[in-house]
């Protein structure tokens, strides 16, 4: 029983941006994130589905998380619950994941501080362990721009790890 408030940095401000060493780490606000699971979800999803190391260019897209699950990003509103007609479980996860973009010429080197990444080894899933945290990682719009979805309660941890990695690069 003790007061450890001073040992922890204050939570991230809204609109967080960090520029250093020619790289930018910035919080991203998305309209919607929806977790959809189902045995055929990968073939049923209408949005383009991203794996690793795909570059996403669409505004609305789906992340392949595992063989029976996608995270629909900026998709249409879908009612939550079990959809018996199409065999899908749907949950709004808009606030479950904090989202950040890491961009800059050496952004891959930054991320290699936290995970074994290889652009030559593709994966159908964007799920990774980055700095020990479960994340969804893919490229967004550019070759050197990476987007990361992390459990929102771990946002501060991911940012602090990335800031350290940027400083080391």
């Amino acid at each position, binding site marked *: 029983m003790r007061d450890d408030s001073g040992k922890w940095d204050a939570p991230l401000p809204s609109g967080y941006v960090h520029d250093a060493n020619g790289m930018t780490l910035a919080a991203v606000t998305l309209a919607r994130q929806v977790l959809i699971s189902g045995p055929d979800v990968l073939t049923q999803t209408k949005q383009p589905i991203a794996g690793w190391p795909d570059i996403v260019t669409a505004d609305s897209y789906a992340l392949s998380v595992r063989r029976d699950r996608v995270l629909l990003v900026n998709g249409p509103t879908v009612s939550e619950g079990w959809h018996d007609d199409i065999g899908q479980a749907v949950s709004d996860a808009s*606030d479950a994941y904090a989202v950040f973009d890491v961009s800059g010429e050496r952004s891959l080197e930054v991320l290699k*501080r936290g995970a074994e990444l290889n652009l030559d080894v593709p994966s159908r899933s964007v799920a990774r362990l980055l700095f020990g945290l479960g994340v969804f990682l893919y490229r967004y719009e550019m070759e050197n721009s990476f987007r990361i979805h992390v459990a929102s309660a771990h946002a501060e941890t991911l940012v602090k790890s990335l800031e350290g990695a940027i400083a080391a690069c």
Partner: protein
Amino acid sequence: MTSHRTTRVALIDRSKPLRFSFDGKEYQGYEGDTLASALLANGVRVMGRSFKYHRPRGPWGAWVDDPNAIMTVTLNGHSFPNCPATSTPLVEGMQARSVNAWPSAAFDIKSGLDLFHRWLSAGFYYKTFMWPNWHLFEPIIRKMAGLGDISRDVLEGYSADQVFDHCELLVIGGGAAGLAAARAAAEAGKGVVLVEDHPVLGGGLHQMAEVEGLAPADWIAEQVNAITSAGGRILTATTAFGVYDHGLVGLAENGPFGTAPRLHRMRADRIVLATGALDRPITFAGNDRPGVMAMDGACEYLARYGVLVGRKIALVSNNSLADAAEVLLAEAGAQVLRLPPHDGPMQALGGKRIKGIAQGAKRHDVDTILASGGMTPLVHLWRHAGGKLNWCETRQAFLPGAAPDGMVAVGAVNGAFDLDVSLSEARAAGNGKSPDLSPTSYALTPLWPDPGSKGRQWIDFQHDVTLKDVELAARENYVSVEHLKRYTTLGMASDQGKTSNMAGLAAMAAVQGRPLPEVGTTTFRPPFVPVPLEMYHGHHGKQLWHPLKRLALEPQHRAAGAALGEYGGWLRPGWYGKGEAKQLIHQEVLTARGSAGIFDASPLGTIEVMGPDAETFVNFIYYNTIRTLKPGHIRYGFMLTEGGIVLDDGVITRLDQNRFVISCSSSHVDSVRTHLEAWRQDGNNPDRIFVHDQTQHWATVTIAGPKAREILAALALDVDLSAKAFPHMTLQETHFEETPMRIARVSFTGDLSYELSVRCAKAPALWEAVVKAGQALGAAPIGIEALSILRAEKGYIMVGKDTDGETMPHDLGFGVPRLNKSSAFIGDRSLHCDKANATNRKTLVGLAVPTGAPPLTTGAHLVDGTPPRSQGYVTSSYESPTLDRPVALGLVENGAARIGETVSVWHLGDIREATICAPCAFDPEGERLHA
């Protein structure tokens, strides 16, 4: 001076002199020197003291094979202990001090210990310090033992960068074989990374006059150019210190002195091992004296640093590599005397400096003895990877045998001591072929320790293990090499067997009369060389050491003056306000009982289970019957392990026919999710059940207390809050600021309570609204500490605190659900075993203390008999502000049947009395709960 700098062209930059000191005396070296080479150039031979006997020690080798010259180096005010002088680059202003010596290595006051060596043999302290008590002697022994002292300074910024990397082919070793293999592979289009632990490539090539018709430096430059031109990468000053699973190699890339190495976690598809071989010592009397050095080490000092280690040198070697060494040393100006080691027992003469060497009746006046008992291939990394070793009778050495997946050994590590053979097999390996053992011109006469021979003969220089120690270990039946190692400390610490292993094994083989390969080797483990712990530590420090989950409402809690702390992996408010914590917490309890406490319950699990088989699944997962739960209703229940042990408790809500929400304990969310996923895929159809962990999407604000309904009503939500319309253990769905809201009427305090859940983005607005509404009615935010008291007053448990690794649900008073359950569930079978139904199981009880007595100590044991036997222990204990007396919960043998019994409670020698009572001390009829 015996050792001195020559004019030979070397790898140092003579235009850049560097000043440094050793044991308080000033010296000068050059850029490119190591501490050891600079000291040798200044004629310094004694650079350290041995571990046990404090005998003077000079360098044996010229690189990582040296076990003797270990120093504490201070630079820019910061001290770094245990720096190997042979591999520490010289830097301007370095202040080096020998470890394990005072006042200096040259004159060490503890050297008198050597006079008592007859009584200090291996294992002496195991036998000597048993009476009256080991702990009596332990402090002084520990003070005397060890090498170096850790600086108490905190070195800010000493942080290791850690990088994950990948390559098609990793070549370890930048000597002739490594360079040739890397070039061949790079030119064949492979993605090659070559690592070399020296700052300069070339390995032993610098000792040679030419390589394939070129000067060594030109040949090396040509290979480097070819490798980099083909896209290969070269990392110098980088040591491959360990090989781990699936081709993962740990690389320590050294930067400037005083900075932490960078750790590369290199995943390689293939590995070419070109780590070379080391000279092994010859075991003869006085072979530990300063001035007895490795033949190859002496050649390296000359080739790399221009340092000739002696003027009159006895070259004692049993192998053909001595011929080239003799020429090299003689050309540099040394008088070299070749002594065949088989011509009779030898003895080094002299103390801190060599005066000569005696062999039989002959005495030779020399100032340096160079020894080579044959080459020992550096197979450490090969063994880390699981490769086998074969004994080579021709080379008298263990060589790489059956290869681990994706690894091949080339060059000297593979027994190819001839340059042309080495290059040939390296190029083949670079092109993907695995070389066989090639014929060799290398010849040697076996030369191993001779048990029973006269004189003190050192096997392990660093730990003062002598031949007699090995003989003693064998007499005491420590005949396994692993036991020998631990009994004598042979091959431990920074040496890791590099110089001592073969001599030790051979001595043990000779003592037992067994062939050396039959004795085998000890286990090779990473790291190959000492590396700072900081390198493994990396960025995991301070807030990243054990990062906590952060609440969406943390800014609101901070603004309200919350004392934040770790509770179940989350940074949560323990209490609010400034002042004496206990008083603040008690006030929060009274507020919650008098009006209402407002509480951030967001970490509680929100795990949705959906699908056509969801009902069957949760009914199987839970100890309680869930099948009968109606939509909009909530049930309290347990999840068990297969062993019937309580894994978690919490409530489950049915939203509709195919959708459930599991609200598990805050600290168990990850384990419960894993538990659900595991069972979903085992024995169930995973296409008909889906588990979504929604915990971090939702934030939950709880209002608990007699005025909870009035506070909730003030939010003007579209919900009928009457007890009849909204009874205990039901759920209503509505909207808050146009977003979905769930209101669960459940309680963890024993009072009327509502849990309001909205998406995190709306949590601040909800919190502000609830606090504002609550303030008007005397309610206020409360922290975890107050909640813990409130729930203990009611007798509600916390799994993991009020349960242990043996607690089953019936131990907590929940025996009925299993009697009513008609279908199988996890843990069912285990609840029927004898142990599960024994009468002496520890069950949950309350514990009351006499009037006026203070609270019991959590963890205190309930005891009986003489000597005292534990019957159980106190799991939770608090001063209850509500009841104005202590309350406690405990797990006690057969406790439920002993209500009213007085028991003794023992804690740190004090014994107190307590009375076993029912766990619930507050509102046992539940009138407030169902209000």
